[in-house]
């Protein structure tokens, strides 16, 4: 019965972690560029009480053995990279990626991080930066007197100067792609860093051969969290937690019964 208690306990811990994950998804339902995570569970090891195929009598063998499972564990919570909805903002520095790519962001520590959030701004030097002030890679600088900024679907950033009709090119935004984006490491602030599981980034121009996707100016990518789906997950998770707690109670009651036999 100790097995039942611990199996149910493992189920409760796992569901608790699932609720933590759902809570983070719901909390980020309005975070531009946020990608939801989904918890995956696995069953734990099995205790073999009767080995299948062992001798049951002089001439027969056990057709199927007895294996008692020892509960569950959360195995992973992978990032689900489905495309979020596009929201029109008309802000010239809001960009969405239509496709699988990521913007490359130069962090303060000199390393590159990757994001799907295209809410950019200009810093006082005219560099295109994220909300945290980290510049994009390769750096794009817009002079202060620039009149209108346009970002083409291939990532070319151009602007016009006062009293000029021809546009000036400020640079081209490059996007990165990963073999297994679900294996990226979230570091907060909408940023991801590569891991051994995700593989190294493949960098390319939007619309190019690398399949990084194309850009669309004046839009933001909403979070891909579906609040309805999260609520359904929350309900099932809560009920599963409840069911596990009932097992703990049942095991406890059975222990009580055992004690009554002795009395």
């Amino acid at each position, binding site marked *: 019965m100790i*097995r039942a208690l611990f199996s149910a306990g493992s189920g409760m811990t796992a569901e608790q972690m*699932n609720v933590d994950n759902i809570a983070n998804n719901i909390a980020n339902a309005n975070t531009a560029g946020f990608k939801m995570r989904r918890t995956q569970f*696995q069953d734990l090891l*099995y205790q073999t009480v009767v080995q299948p195929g062992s001798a049951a*009598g002089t*001439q027969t063998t056990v057709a199927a053995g007895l294996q008692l499972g020892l509960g569950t564990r959360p195995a992973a919570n992978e990032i689900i990279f489905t495309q979020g909805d596009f929201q029109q903002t008309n802000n010239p520095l809001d960009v969405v990626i239509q496709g699988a790519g990521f913007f490359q962001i130069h962090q303060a520590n000199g390393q590159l991080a990757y994001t799907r959030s295209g809410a950019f701004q200009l810093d006082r030097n005219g560099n295109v930066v994220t909300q945290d002030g980290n510049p994009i890679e390769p750096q794009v600088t817009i002079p202060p007197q620039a009149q209108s900024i346009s970002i083409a679907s291939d990532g070319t950033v151009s602007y016009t100067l006062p009293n000029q009709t021809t546009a000036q090119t400020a640079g081209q935004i490059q996007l990165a792609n990963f073999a297994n984006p*679900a294996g990226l490491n979230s570091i907060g602030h909408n940023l991801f860093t590569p891991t051994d599981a995700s593989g190294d980034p493949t960098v390319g121009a939007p619309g190019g051969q690398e399949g990084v996707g194309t850009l669309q100016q004046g839009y933001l990518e909403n979070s891909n969290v579906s609040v309805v789906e999260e609520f359904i997950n929350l309900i099932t998770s809560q009920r599963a937690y409840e069911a596990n707690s009932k097992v703990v109670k049942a095991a406890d009651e059975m222990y009580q019964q055992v004690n009554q036999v002795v009395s």
Partner: protein
Amino acid sequence: MEALTAMAASGLRVRTETLDLIANNIANTGTSGYKADGESYDLYFGEDAWEGVNENRPADGEMPLIRSNWVNFTQGTLLPTGNQSDLALTSSGFFAVQSESGTLYTRAGHFRISKKGTLETPEGYELLATTGKPLQLDASKPFTISTSGQVVQEDTPKGSLQIVDVDSVDNLIKHGGTYFMLPPSGKVSPATNIEVVQGKVESSNVEATQAAVKLVGVLRQFEMLQRAVRIAGDMGKQAVEQVAKVGF
């Protein structure tokens, strides 16, 4: 021990093992690809029933226990994940993966594409193709998997996934991590009527309501058996105090 106590005690032990099974099933209601366990009991026959029979005869004093568990291989519902490397089977059969301890079989379809361009499980076990080797894909390009398990990348067929049927599912041993192991005596054959669904995973087939009903049942049976043990004890006491009383 006289027969009543012995039978009731073995019944108590069976119910605790049944509770272990139910607990594990309920704990794994959220485990994709998990298949629920069921139990089967041995009937208890009195000594007389074994008269002249030697086959499968329990040793003296051996009481019925759960003889074995069986795995319920009914289909679990499919949940969409939006991940192109997540696969589900709606037909019978198993995906074959290569682990360090040999080939394992699973219906849990959380796969990912590795840096090397092979499909692998979260533990890094590579998914096998019909050739017996992992499929080689281009990691940075999307791919589609047809219902028959054929993997196509950029209009080029890259091979088919190895999906196998087992000659008898009773031979499969649960290995943890929703994997099944086959003992050397078990045989596999390529599955027929394969139906692979891309972008979905098969959820656990544990029926929560059924498990709850069973839980209540086990609990009450345990209570009854406990009463039986007490009654047997009382009877023994009566025998000592009343029947065996000498002189009135």
